Structures are given as C-alpha cells and as structure tokens.
C-alpha cells in the first residue's frame, strides 16, 4: 500500500506551489515536518519565503511551528498570514 500524506496549500502558498493539494509518498516510519518542508522547498523554490511566515495545521490542530511528525494518511495544511474580513 502506498504511504502518503496530504499537504493542503492556501493563498500565497497555493500560488507558489501551483497546487492546492499535494499527495506525497513518505517513508514507512513517517516523516518529520521539517524534512517534508525542506523537500517542498526543493521542489517549489517559491514556497521558501511563504513557509517562513506561515502557520502549520496537522489534522485540524495547529502545530507550535514547523515541527512534529506525520504518519500515513495525515494532512498538513500550510496557512500563510490571514486576511479575512
């Protein structure tokens, strides 16, 4: 079975990556969030700046920063600064 995580991108993050959702294979033991972010920066260089100002949400819960671990089926959302209202 393919092990993947889903990355959801909003606003400037979506524009930088050219996609609102990315499904990415991960190693059997999962992947550290910083490792995944480095891979994303490598694949989408325009994301680098956006990631420095974004918040990260794993399965609907805010992470305290670009930290933590993702397992198969997890979702990581990248939230650039909010601009509602």
């Amino acid at each position: 079975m393919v092990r993947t995580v889903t990355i959801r991108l909003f606003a400037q993050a979506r524009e930088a990556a050219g996609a609102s959702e990315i499904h990415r294979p991960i190693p059997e033991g999962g992947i550290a969030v910083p490792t995944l972010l480095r891979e994303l920066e490598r694949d989408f260089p325009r994301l680098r700046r956006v990631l420095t100002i974004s918040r990260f949400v794993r399965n609907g819960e805010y992470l305290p920063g670009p930290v933590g671990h993702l397992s198969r089926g997890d979702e990581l959302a990248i939230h650039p600064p909010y601009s509602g209202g």
Partner: protein
Amino acid sequence: VSVRLTPGRLSIARAYAALADPTSGGVVLFVGRVRPDRRRGGEVSSLFYEAHTTVALSAMAAMETAARGRPGVRQVLLWHRTGDVPVGEPSVIVGVGAAHRAEAFEACRSLIDELKSTVPIWKTDRARPARRRPRSPRPRARGSAD
C-alpha cells in the same frame, strides 16, 4: 445560525433578526464591505475569499463561546462570506447583543479584530482593468487667433 461561512450573500436584516432578544438593550453590528480600491492593474471589482473551512469554523465557534462568556453579552454572531464578493457587498458581519451598549461595542470590536488575525480566511483582489482616459483636446497655443 450564529457562526457561518457561506458563498451566499450576507443579509444585514437577517443578521439583526438573529440577534432579536429583547433582553439585549444594545445590539452592535459590524459590517465589512468590499472597497473599490485602486490597484496597479486597475480598480478592485471584487475580492475572492477562501477559507480552510473546518479550522475556520472551529475557530469562529470558539470565539463565539468565549465572547458569550463576557459580562453582559447575550448573543454573538459571526458570519463570513467565501468566494467572489463584489464591491459594495458585505464580506463579513459580526454582531453582538448585550445588556448595555458598552459591552456590545467592546465585544464586537474585539471579535472582528480577532477574526481578522486568527481565523484561516484569505482574500485576493480581482481588479477590472483601468479605463483609458479619453484624450483631452490639445490646448491651443497661447496667443493664437480664434
């Protein structure tokens, strides 16, 4: 419904009706509308709003619960529109019904500030191209005879 994210038009009358509790001596509604700001590409014709819906709704529900716990506050309403919102139409309505006006004003102000900075909603400008100004007639050379 006190917390709402919707692609439909927001009705100020419905928002006010939703706060119709006679025990609230003061009702404050904040309505945020789309402005026709000038941008390099022309004038803003609409704003496009996107949200991380589940996280946004949960944040808005938590804000509503916390605000209802403030002294004097009876009802709280947080509505935000998503999708394309044309100039002049409301993009957000925050409403508070409270025993007295001071509590209603204070709660409403802090709710809209908190919503803008903590709820995962984003807007993008959509501009209509600037109209080319009609050429004005070239001024005649001074002293020319008419």
